[in-house]
């Protein structure tokens, strides 16, 4: 005899409605949901949008011709570089960079002026501390034009020919410590995934434990309900919350950070749906495993850390050791980042997206199945 109650849409709906009403009354959580993307954008936004100027720079000036000096003046006038000290040796420069005293070391080699006039295209070496590439990116990008226009002013009359062609000097930029450099555009779309991972897992992570701690679970369990109805009923309303966050971040990415959006936005929204559900499922499953709200929070955190560290958000994915990549491949955030960056920046379409999307779906299904299995139908521990 089948002693199980069939799944009921009506009961599922009852829970959805109840969750919506509770969500509406829970101002604090709702504030947090809006606040988290806001704060993250603000924090990361400074790094991105800052277009930092007046970066501390050391000069190794081995030449005393007028050309070297006027170059330095031009760099200074650009406002990107602030000359804070003069170093005499290569090793002194190296140490200043390593300590983080300066962001750049500009080296103007011996006989720079003489070689310039000879048309030898003498080298200028700019070493940058690129640990934070967003901090140095704009300054470096401006160098070439800066140098060219500075010398154009000096190289007039019969010398004008030197300014032609490849330019009068050979600019060599060494991005130290982080030669790849993550583009600033990588961060904002990535932030969408990070914010969703954090808030979605946390929201549902508390869902079941909260019912237990408030004592309402006893009532809920005394009603004829199935685990899947409860779990899905608690997941659905939060999808809207997820979309609010997606909307906030995409708007900010567009209007404030001018992130190019080559690909299809509806595609992003569709992918976001799957990703949001995967994270909500993770949270609700934590909720069925945790004994209390504190444990649920801890589990959320243990999920969030590898997500942010191993997904390619913090460090270039290919730069990680193999074991870390293996963990990363399991995490929904890893695939979501690839999709979002691919769609927004490279204009990827469905074909490329599917390759990553099915892995997020698989994650969601497995995790939800664990949740349904672990959902306790009695008050027994």
């Amino acid at each position, binding site marked *: 005899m089948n*002693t*199980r*109650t069939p799944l*009921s849409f*009506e*009961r599922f*709906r*009852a829970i959805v*409605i*109840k969750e919506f*009403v*509770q969500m509406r*009354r*829970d101002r604090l959580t709702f504030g947090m949901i809006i606040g988290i993307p806001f704060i993250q954008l603000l924090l990361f936004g400074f790094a991105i949008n800052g277009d930092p100027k007046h970066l501390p720079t050391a000069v190794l000036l081995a030449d005393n011709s007028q050309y070297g000096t006027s170059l330095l003046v031009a760099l200074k006038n650009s406002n990107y570089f602030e000359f804070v000290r003069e170093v005499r040796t290569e090793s002194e420069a190296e140490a200043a960079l390593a300590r983080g005293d300066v962001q750049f070391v500009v080296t103007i080699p011996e006989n720079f002026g003489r070689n310039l006039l000879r048309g030898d295209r003498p080298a200028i070496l700019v070493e940058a501390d690129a640990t934070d590439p967003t901090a140095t990116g704009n300054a470096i990008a401006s160098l070439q034009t800066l140098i060219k226009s500075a010398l154009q002013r000096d190289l007039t009359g019969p010398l004008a020919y030197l300014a032609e062609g490849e330019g009068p000097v050979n600019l060599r930029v060494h991005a130290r410590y982080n030669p790849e450099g993550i583009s600033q555009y990588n961060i904002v779309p990535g932030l969408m995934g990070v914010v969703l991972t954090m808030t979605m897992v946390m929201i549902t992570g508390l869902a079941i434990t909260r019912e237990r701690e*408030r*004592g*309402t*679970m*006893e*009532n809920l*369990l*005394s*009603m*004829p*309900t199935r685990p899947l109805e409860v779990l899905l009923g608690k997941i659905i309303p939060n999808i809207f919350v997820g979309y609010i966050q997606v909307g906030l971040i995409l708007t900010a990415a567009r209007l404030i950070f001018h992130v190019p959006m080559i690909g299809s936005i509806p595609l992003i929204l569709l992918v976001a749906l799957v990703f949001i559900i995967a994270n909500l499922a993770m949270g609700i499953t934590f909720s069925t495993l945790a004994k209390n709200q504190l444990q649920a929070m801890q589990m959320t955190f243990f999920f969030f850390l590898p997500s942010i560290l191993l997904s390619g958000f913090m460090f270039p994915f290919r730069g990680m050791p193999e074991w870390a990549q293996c963990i990363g491949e399991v995490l929904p955030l890893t695939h979501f980042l690839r999709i979002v960056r691919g769609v927004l920046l490279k204009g990827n379409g469905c074909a490329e997206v599917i390759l990553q999307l099915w892995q997020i779906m698989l994650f969601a299904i497995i995790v939800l199945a664990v949740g349904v299995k672990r959902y306790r*139908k*009695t*008050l*027994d521990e």
Partner: protein
Amino acid sequence: MMDSLAIDVRGMTKRFGGRTVVNGVDLQVKTGEVYGFLGPNGSGKTTFIRMLCGLLAADAGEGACLGFDVIRESAFIKRQVGYMTQRFSFYEDLSIAENLDFVARMYGVSNRRTAVRESIDRLGLGGRQKQLAGELSGGWKQRLALAACLIHNPRLLLLDEPTAGVDPKARRDFWEQIRELAGQGLTFLITTHYMDEAERCDRLAYLSYGNLLTRGTVAEVIAHAHLTTWSVSGPELHALARRLRECPDVIQAVAFGARLHVSGSDAQRLEQAIAPFRTGSHVWQNISPGLEDVFIHLMGNAKDNFSE
């Protein structure tokens, strides 16, 4: 006839970490009966009720609840049972109407809106249906909980201390409502610590440390206890009680307001025991023992058993 028993379970047992909290309890409750479930704090009443409606898995036991197997068919039992938890367990952040609506949906009540509206009217909460449940006073929470338990027209109501913290007038109304519903064929299993409520029950059972000590109608329970009781009034009852308790034939000497109830299990020996005390200014009167005398007696016995 099987059908006339709403609850018919045997040997219900629950252990928490090796401690037996409900120990082989048998209980038969007839359809349409108001059955009182009594016992001191921690005796296992709530635990027993939770096993009946499938909220706790029983470690042993068998039987039927509303004709369904109490162990395996709790999904069916749940649909026809209204369980009112001891601690308020509706959503404090939902309004009265929203709570009722939620429950009605969960049970798939037909004519949901009407059912909710009628329930609110019956409660007399018409003007406050938008108020959050968490803002209600304790007594009103109890009333809301009862209303919510009734909304899906259950056949059996398991009420765990439904009148705790409810004022006398509301308690009276509450019991009138229960009587009326029982008349319509609903069955009630009610836990309470109030003697007057116990006396209103058709039958009752007394649980102590997980063991069912006695059961039956009020008269049967009293008769089973075989107590002889004297009521004493007069000065300095407290000192008198202390001295009486030293007599081996006096089982208990308990204050009842301005009187002292002195009980023993052997009428003759009790009379001999109290004879030396009947000389002073006290007025002695042989009375028939009440439920409370019996329960206090049961509680005392149980402690003895426990410490053996």
